[in-house]
């Protein structure tokens, strides 16, 4: 399965524009929102292939968005891959919590746009390998 649509929830304009620019060039359709509430609404209204999720967001933190989408009985976005992007290194507790609901957890400072594309491609590859 080839991924097409990406939602980027990121409040830093420099970083948001950087992802949008690179991912558009790589051929993806990308929607970008800057606060947590809009992010949650967008994620529920449209089935994205990938969500890039910041953690420290205005209005609603990334962890709360994730919890609202996947913390209940039913996974509201079962086909979406969620990539958490943050500069906060995890302690063991949050790592375990994230492992439950996220598909990747990446340190922004380490993940240059090119690397991000390669991570998305890796997840694409996994999705294709699935029956």
């Amino acid at each position: 399965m080839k991924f097409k649509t990406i939602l980027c929830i990121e409040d830093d304009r420099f970083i948001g524009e950087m992802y949008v620019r690179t991912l558009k060039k790589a051929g993806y359709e990308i929607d970008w929102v800057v606060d947590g509430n809009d992010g949650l609404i967008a994620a529920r209204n449209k089935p994205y292939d990938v969500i890039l999720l910041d953690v420290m967001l205005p209005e609603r933190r990334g962890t709360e968005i994730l919890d609202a989408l996947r913390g209940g009985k039913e996974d509201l976005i079962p086909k979406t891959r969620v990539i958490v992007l943050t500069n906060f290194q995890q302690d063991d507790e949050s790592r375990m919590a994230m492992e439950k609901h996220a598909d990747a957890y990446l340190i922004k400072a380490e993940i240059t746009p090119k690397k991000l594309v390669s991570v998305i491609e890796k997840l694409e590859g996994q999705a294709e390998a699935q029956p």
Partner: protein
Amino acid sequence: MEVNKTPKLASQFWPEFIKRKIILVILTQITISALAALALTTTGVFYIDSVVMWLIILGFLTLNITSDILILLSATSPTKDLMSAIVNVSGERTVLTPPNPNRAEYEKTGFRDALQTIYKLSANKEEGDSEKAEEKLKKQVSNLTGALDMTICGFIALDSDRNVVYANKSAPAKTDSNGKKNVDLIFNGTDTLDSWLDTCQENAVHDEHIWLRVPDRLPNEEGRRFFDVLASYQKSSNIETVLTLIDKTKSYSVDEENLDFISFAAHELRGPITVIRGYLDVLEDELADVLKDDQTELFRRLIVSSNRLSGYIDNILNTSRYDRRHLKMHLAEDTVMDIYDTISDDMKLRAGAQNRLLTINIPDDLPTIAADRGSIGEVLGNLIDNAIKYSNEGGLVSVNAKVNGDFVDISVIDNGIGMPESVVSQLFQKFYRSHRSRETVAGSGIGLYISKAIVESHGGKISVRSEDGHGSTFTVSLPIYATVADKLKVDDNSNEGLISEGNGWIKNHSMYRS
């Protein structure tokens, strides 16, 4: 003078005494009978050879002796009983049973009271003695526990089943719902009290161990304290282990605040670095056709520098976590080549930008190792960065790997300035920078400190061989996966299905979802 005369015992008195009295009675009666025989013969009543007279005399003699002895025994019987009572309470060894004051005849004669007086006197004395001793002991114990409760040092004594036998007030001991006291400390990683006691009980007769900065609660919990813990172990004595706990909360919490600040600042720094590295990455492609050769070189220096900056921030963050005992390794089966691949492009770029020749000799057939990919990548990055820093323009830096027993040795070798022996021993200390490096090379002095911490958290070793003026070889030894696989599977399997990506991870869906 009779120097060696042994003192007479009370129990010896009575048999001697009564024996002498009986002999006296017999001799007296014989004398009286002899006098009677003399009187009868001299007065002419009987002839000296009269059988009748002798029979009469002998008859009376026997009768008198018998009756006198009976009277003697009967008259002295209270004395005998008194003596035997005294012998019994005196504590001398004796086979006599003490006379029973409740015998009917004693009651009748009133002798019972006399006997009871003796028993009572002695009983009072004994009771008083033991009561006093007990009181004294109690007082000593309460003095001691009171003093121990006043100290700011904690003391905990454990028996051979690891039950808490004693814990003073300052000691972090918690009573659970079953009323059992437990040591209330949170040890970091695998170096715990229990694991140490396991080894002790298996191998040691006597051992000592020290843990520093051990908290009793989790971070953010109220009233969290930090202890330096000194343990002494002595096999098979009643109390097998004694823990001495020094409350270092005050001095460590200052550190904690400082380190929290450092970690916060480092996280903040990552924001701009994300943008710098990101846009350089974007521009590198977009400007590829526009830049002239010398501009490309300048552009490459920008990328190398921002990558290094990012690496240093990782060092700072990990040092802060390590010092707060928060540094956790997520060990998984990995190959040296795969780990090196994650930093390969960056290292090539760095060596190229600084005009060093970097050669990599990692054989394909090396066994897999147990490693946290991001952290070992950081260690190798630090060592290669140092090798570049401390070698000369055009110098050779090589990375080799080989099997060494249960370990895989990864060596980073340079032919640079090297260092004297005096420097080598201090190299892995925090903020250590050699005299020379302070003058000539920029750096913070925590790269090797955190590298050592990371390698040791893997159960590995880091070592250095160097000759002043002739370069250095840093060697990292990491355990072969097969040698530790069993232990890892027991300790932690949270990494199954995660592919590590720098300090983050990607879920491996081919293992997770069906």
